[in-house]
């Protein structure tokens, strides 16, 4: 840590011992990196799982050397069984949604940059921050431990619908201890997310520096704030659902299990519960969760597009309000996951209308991104490429949502590959593009060195074309009627689609492989990259006013004062083409 600030009136000592500096650190920047690397590890695991699944789908007899060591029962002799496919699918979904899409964009980048962007020295509650990371870490360990229990991981999917997930091991392997550990892992994860969310909210509301009005917040901060509110309200409900599910599993209660079930020729000792109750609780969380994954990506994209188009974001207020609108509406639409579940068909009407309404703020955002590009001077850095890629994927993935939001079309498309294509495009790949963009953009600030731009561009083009090759065909076969969550194609109807699956598998293997370019780029640049200046991208927000990497307390004991909005690029009549937020010079357009 720089010693230059030692003479300031108030000394802030960085921790000196390794364990306090890097392991149980209270520094939001270290915790942000911890989250980031936790997500990076998880995404590699999740991606390898998806490879195994894709290979099994088209070459079910392929020998995968080493897989039998991980699971002798799931892959005898290295050949995956269909049931192991379901285990991997469950963990792929759970790991990707909870430990990648929820952690990296929000807890990772948010932790690192929210305090700096609002001019604070740290999050409001550093100890709570540390606690929430380690809680999340424990949740991940518990989840991964399911690989090593006797029956293997659960097979009930990331949604874990009861009764399959509630009646115990008679419903299938993995439904014993594996499923119990899964429920416990998610419950622990909920606690970590709740602690993180309240920390984010208090930080955003109360720690802004002088002059940082709400309408001067970078859109990233708006996105993190709205995401935190969603997390706070939704994870508490998921925790409740997990508690009830766990009691059904181990306490003999009947919250979700109806009477008279016969599983594997045994009459279940339960009565009167409602599987739909779980679905309602789960999706009350599950739909906001989708926006927890994507909103930070929207924030990052807005931030980067404005910077590299060198002009102010088009419609700042509309962007901020549309984030809030999406956040609010996300609590009113959960029923669209359940059109065919046997809930009242009348409520489908309102759920469907609200779902369509959520398309409106999404459209506003897309228009405004295009409006920002219009008349700009676009610099195609890797961060910018991934941001434009984000917009393209968000449009593609969002539009298939127009089909799925209509209950009358749901009988055709529900549970087909069309749905898989939809959510992978919009919350999977688009959100991950947001993370890539954030990494290329903020890496210099986080590690003090630049990433390699050439390899960044190679990474972008291969990934961008690759993900379209993987996920676009899923729409086509979904429309034709290919059902998701099938481990093998047994019937004549699906067999003609195998060549498409082969194409997607090859594309997935290729796209996955090129991610190692990114990984190598990250780790190589961390040590060997070109040294970064304080403001390599000529950005305007506060993170670019501090050294790269920032000192222990970010602003070296000073309090930045903010005079402008965050996106003053291309200001007429200035010698530089941008005005930093903390620059006292006057701009005519100032609000």
């Amino acid at each position, binding site marked *: 840590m720089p010693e230059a600030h030692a003479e300031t009136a108030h000394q802030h000592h960085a921790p000196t011992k390794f364990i306090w500096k890097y392991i149980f650190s209270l520094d939001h920047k270290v915790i942000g990196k911890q989250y980031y690397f936790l997500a990076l590890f998880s995404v590699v695991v999740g991606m390898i799982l998806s490879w195994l699944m894709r290979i099994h789908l088209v070459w079910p007899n392929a020998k995968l050397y080493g897989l039998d060591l991980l699971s002798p029962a799931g892959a005898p002799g290295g050949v995956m069984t269909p049931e192991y496919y379901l285990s991997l699918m469950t963990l792929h979904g759970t790991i990707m949604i909870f430990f990648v899409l929820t952690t990296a964009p929000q807890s990772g980048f948010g932790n690192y940059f929210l305090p700096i962007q609002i001019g604070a020295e740290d999050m409001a509650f550093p100890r709570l921050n540390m606690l929430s990371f380690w809680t999340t870490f424990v949740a991940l360990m518990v989840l991964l431990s399911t690989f090593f229990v006797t029956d293997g991981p659960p097979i009930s999917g990331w949604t874990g619908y009861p009764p399959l997930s509630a009646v115990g091991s008679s*419903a299938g392997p993995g439904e014993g201890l594996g499923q119990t550990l899964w429920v416990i892992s998610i419950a622990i994860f909920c606690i970590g997310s709740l602690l993180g969310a309240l920390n984010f909210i208090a930080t955003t509301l109360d720690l802004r520096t002088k002059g940082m009005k709400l309408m001067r917040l970078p859109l990233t901060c708006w996105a993190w704030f709205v995401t935190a509110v969603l997390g706070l309200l939704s994870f508490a409900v998921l925790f409740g659902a997990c508690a009830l599910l766990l009691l059904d599993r181990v306490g003999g209660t009947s919250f979700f299990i109806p009477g008279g079930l016969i599983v594997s020729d045994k009459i279940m000792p339960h009565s009167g*519960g409602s599987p739909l109750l779980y679905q309602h609780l789960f999706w009350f969380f599950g739909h906001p969760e989708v926006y927890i994954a994507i909103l930070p990506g929207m924030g990052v994209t807005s931030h980067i597009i404005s910077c590299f188009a060198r002009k102010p974001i088009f419609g700042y207020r509309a962007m901020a309000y549309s984030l809030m609108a999406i956040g609010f509406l996300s609590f009113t639409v959960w029923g669209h996951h359940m059109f065919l579940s046997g809930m009242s068909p009348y409520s489908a009407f309102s759920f469907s209308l609200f779902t*369509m309404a959520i398309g409106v703020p999404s459209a506003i955002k897309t228009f405004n991104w295009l409006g920002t590009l219009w008349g700009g001077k676009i610099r195609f850095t890797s961060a910018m490429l991934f941001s434009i890629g984000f917009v393209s994927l968000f449009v593609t993935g969002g539009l298939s949502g127009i089909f799925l*939001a209509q209950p009358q079309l749901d009988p055709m498309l529900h549970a087909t590959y069309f749905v898989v294509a939809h959510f992978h495009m919009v919350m999977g790949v688009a959100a991950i593009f947001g993370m890539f963009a954030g990494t290329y953009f903020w890496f210099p600030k986080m590690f003090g060195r630049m990433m390699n731009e050439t390899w960044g561009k190679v990474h972008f083009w291969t990934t961008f074309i690759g993900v379209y090759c993987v996920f676009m065909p899923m729409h086509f076969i979904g429309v034709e009627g290919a059902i998701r969550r099938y481990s093998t194609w047994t019937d004549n109807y699906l067999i003609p689609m195998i060549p498409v699956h082969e194409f997607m598998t090859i594309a997935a293997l290729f796209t996955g492989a090129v991610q190692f370019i990114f990984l190598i780029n990250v780790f190589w640049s961390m040590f060997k990259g070109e040294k970064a200046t304080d403001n390599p991208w000529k950005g305007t927000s506060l993170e670019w006013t501090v050294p790269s990497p920032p000192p222990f307390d970010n602003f070296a004991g000073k309090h930045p004062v903010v005079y402008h909005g965050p996106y003053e690029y291309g200001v007429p009549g200035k010698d530089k083409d941008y005005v930093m937020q903390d620059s006292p010079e006057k701009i005519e357009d100032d609000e």
Partner: protein
Amino acid sequence: MGLAFFVVLVLITAVSVYIFGAHIWWPPHAISTIGPSVDHQFNLTLILTGIIFVCAQLGLGYFAWKYRDRKDGRKVIYSHGNNKLEAGWTIAAAVVFIGLNLIGFQIWAKMYFTPAPPDALQIQVQGQQFAYYFRYPGPDGKFGPTHVEKVDDATGNFFGLDRDHDQDSKDDIVTATLGVPVNRPVELILRSKDVGHSFFVRELRIHQDLVPGIEIPIHFTATETGRFEIVCTQLCGLGHYKMRAFLQVMTEEDYQKWLQSQMAAQ
């Protein structure tokens, strides 16, 4: 780089539009009374989203190309936005999206709000790991009661009928294939024996979850004869991928014959 973006987005758009437009992969021919209206709504949505898709992707690619930094000292358009434009596209998006939904809603109403006609043929459908069984009420038109403790897959008593004591159960017919007559309304009563399942016949455009603990009615009228696949779409355990049965739509005459033969096999 901007040009590359334009070219790649044009290619992606063109290929996607071509594949959808040429119906290379397309839903199977609809064989229920509800089918054509569902397909119509699907096509309407496809055209509308297709137009938005093309405009947005090409606009994105074009802007990326046109407004690339040519290092020519051009000034950017310094604009913080335009409230009239924002209001305009907000209203336009709202009208299009919500209007589309309202247009299609009568299809949903036909599926679920309107009850099955009183003369509809009632059939019970039971899902279990990993098969479907269908129960016809037999000549008396009444389903006998089910008894959980009587269920025994080994003897083929999937529903738990007590044929010795329950009068109504005596003539109930349990089959592994769903045989229905053509052009006659059919009401299915869906139930599950163990975990969640789903009932999906692509050609009927009918799809409904089987939820343990409740019985869900759904109705349709098939308009063409043939053999169609019934698939489970709700993850139900190990054998989920092979859980399927067949729907056999027959002429009234064939149906009666088939029913007789099934009755004889009980």
